């Protein structure tokens, strides 16, 4: 840091010489930090397990209310099943099989997209994402064109799978954050905060997504089930997790940038 700007650059002195980025590091957190953090993760997992039926019911209840705006309420059944020896609720709506006409339109559109995208100036990463999604939908369209009666699922199967997958993901959130946040030199309180926030966000997001998925299958047919499952499923949740992590880390980085009490050099 320059003390006197009237001096020539060679005469300028630095009050603090910061560690160069090449070999700087942070101290290993004391074991006393690990135990409360691990304790929190374990307690959170136990709480998640304990309140699983309630959390699950919450998602289903609100998803049902959203669905009821477009589907007759009596057509949306709330069914109780079991996962990990706990009761979980799932929604069931009448499913629609695609007509041959709908299948043909889907096939045509997806082939058109696959043909057009490489010819356009669509940015490559978006083009690749669209192509991958289109390929999944192409398989689905071909399936319903060739062997429509062999489609192996009912709405309840998809719904149960979705709920189970999301439930597994809820259990994974504290674990993923446990691995990625533990090394960071920040307070336990803030780490707990971001984990709880992510779970709360996932609850809210899944209400919206679950109702949207069931709506699509009810109104626009099973032909969209594969693309919903593969392209708009857990992958989206992970993007949010990474997003929250990155936001947290950037704030931490800004806060600790010049904090010489945090950084070490080599050893």
């Amino acid at each position: 840091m320059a003390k006197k700007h009237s001096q020539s650059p060679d005469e300028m002195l630095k009050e603090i010489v910061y560690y160069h980025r090449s070999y700087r590091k942070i101290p290993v957190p004391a074991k006393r930090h690990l135990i409360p953090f691990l304790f929190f993760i374990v307690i959170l997992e136990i709480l998640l397990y304990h309140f699983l039926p309630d959390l699950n019911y919450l998602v289903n209840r609100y998803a049902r209310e959203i669905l009821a705006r477009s589907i007759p309420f009596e057509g949306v059944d709330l069914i109780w099943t079991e996962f990990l020896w706990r009761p979980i609720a799932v929604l069931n709506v009448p499913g629609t099989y695609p007509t041959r006409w709908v299948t043909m339109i889907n096939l045509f559109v997806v082939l058109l997209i696959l043909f057009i995208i490489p010819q356009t100036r669509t940015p490559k990463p978006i083009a690749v994402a669209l192509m991958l999604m289109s390929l999944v939908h192409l398989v689905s369209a071909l399936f319903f064109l060739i062997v429509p009666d062999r489609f192996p699922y009912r709405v309840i199967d998809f719904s149960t799978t979705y709920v189970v997958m999301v439930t597994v993901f809820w259990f994974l959130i504290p674990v993923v954050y446990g691995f990625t946040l533990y090394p960071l030199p920040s307070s336990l309180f803030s780490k707990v905060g971001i984990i709880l926030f992510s779970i709360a966000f996932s609850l809210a997001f899944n209400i919206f997504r679950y109702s949207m998925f069931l709506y699509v299958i009810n109104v626009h047919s099973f032909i969209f089930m594969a693309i919903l499952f593969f392209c708009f499923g857990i992958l989206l949740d992970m993007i949010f997790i990474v997003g929250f992590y990155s936001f947290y880390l950037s704030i931490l980085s800004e806060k600790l940038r010049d904090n010489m009490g945090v950084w070490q050099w080599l050893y």
Partner: protein
Amino acid sequence: MVVLILKIYIVFVAFVMVIYFTRHFIFSLNRIYGEQRFYYQDIFDSNLPFLSVLIPMHNEEKVAAHILDALADADYPKDRFELIPINDHSDDQTGNILDEYAARYPFVKPLHRKTGDRGKQLALNDAIRVTTGEILLVFDADYLPPRGVLRDLAVCFNDPEVGAAMGRVVPVNTSRNLLTRILDLERSGGYQVDQQARHNLLLIAQYGGTVGGFRKTLLHACGGFDPRVITEDTELTFKLYVNGWKVAYANRVECYEEVPETWVTRARQIRRWARGHTQVMFRYFIPVLRSPFLTLREKMDGVLLLSVYTVPAILFLGIADSVALFFLGEINLLTGVLPILLTVTCNTFGNFAPFYQIGIASFLDGSQERIRLLPFLIFNFLFSLWYTTQGFFDAVFDVISARQVKWHKTKRFRRSTT
């Protein structure tokens, strides 16, 4: 039977992803907490070796003068190095620029290649024949070396165990667009954490073909660069390790490069890397396992490093497999495996570097706003998945068809003197 094979494959994919997740988690922890293995910069050598600095160039008129100016300004004694820019079949002003510099500086000795095939490996092989130094340093033409880089790289060759050295690559055109920012994050994860952790843990540090160097006698002993391998740097890395030599990684020796500014250029680059790296994997997978000079941990890391560009192809086939299983009514299996698979897979947000590795690297680098771009790496993930898989199958086809591989230069974007 088919369903069983598909099920086994999906479990295999999950297993592979977990292995790489664990590997990169260990790297991240080591880099942020572990004892950092210092480079040789503390050594001040009064008897500096004579260096031959090679710069392969093909149509590099936009950047040629910049790197020559930078190296002419190096703090290395001018009588202790020669600068050999290789004009490799250029049809722009590159040749004239090199001749101008040769007239100005006696240590600049351009080599004009106008006959034979074009390509970095061939250019290097030809240039090495006219070098007088035992230590050869290589820079790509778009690099901007700082003043001390020659001295810093040369000093490690005082260690008789070191066969090659590698510095850290830092993008210079980072703020150009989203792609360059993403590549900056990716480079940060690759060097600040990945390479340094491998150096710390005595694993396989990689010579990257630029901002680095090697001993000439070793390269001669290995038969020079094979023009059929398009990533000559990766091949040299494994040639050296298999024969008992080490690569010294110098995280402090930073050199600035120009990263691709368009996705099309990036696609070609990553596909070429994947193809070349996979060619090397086919050649060195068994030799790495059988080498008497490598420790068990080096062998394990060597195999994982060699296979790193195979993982996207494995994953891509895994996605196709899971779509097939879905339509075969095996959604229950996917329910069990998919969340784990996706969680681990999405940890490979960067160019198959997990998001936490890139996060930690950027944190150590002192980045702030840029870290917030981490979720955008999903585009890079899908993009890399697509083009790396293509590169992998290019290499497979190379082996099957024994076709000749051609070198494609990365497009330059330099606008003005930097």
